[in-house]
């Protein structure tokens, strides 16, 4: 049981690090504002979720795990609001999404 907790925690931590790295590489490589918001959303949902899940499994059931559970709960409420506001203001100020096959 000890080994199961330890190895599952290591596995989820590496998965979260992989998603955060791929999200930040996408923040460099993607061509447009509206597609970079997609890459930032990958950091906010999957990276945060897996890293916090690994820390919850590592710490066991206590007050610390309850506080850790509050972090993805706040991100679940605030991340869609901020990305929606960024895309709305970018569209109103004249940026148009780049479509590849434009008629």
């Amino acid at each position, binding site marked *: 049981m000890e080994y199961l907790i330890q190895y599952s925690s290591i596995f989820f*931590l590496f998965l979260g690090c992989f998603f955060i790295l791929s999200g930040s590489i996408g923040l460099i490589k993607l061509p447009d504002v509206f597609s970079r918001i997609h890459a*930032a959303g990958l*950091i906010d949902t999957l990276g945060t979720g897996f890293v916090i899940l690994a820390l919850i499994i590592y*710490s066991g059931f206590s007050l610390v795990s309850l*506080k850790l559970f509050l*972090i993805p709960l706040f991100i679940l409420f605030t991340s869609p*609001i901020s990305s929606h506001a960024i895309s709305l203001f*970018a569209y109103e100020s004249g940026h148009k999404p780049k479509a590849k096959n434009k008629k």
Partner: protein
Amino acid sequence: MIFFIALASFGLSIVFCIYRAVKGPSPFDRILSISSIGTIMALGIAVHGFAFNRPDFIDIALMYILLNFLGTIAILKFYKMKGNKKI
């Protein structure tokens, strides 16, 4: 040991986000990458607390996430007040 590898990975992704924040053509790219840096920094604070056996740092991570959201919305309201011209 595992936590230090995770902290190094967070640092590398923060370097990528700083590259986009310096080079980004429009201000919205800069705001987006600064928001991503804030999220990664909060995760780094939480992992750092577990790496040094002091889990009290989670309160600071919670505060950091809330202030990050407020800062993003405040900068966007500032750009909204400057009018709808192309920036």
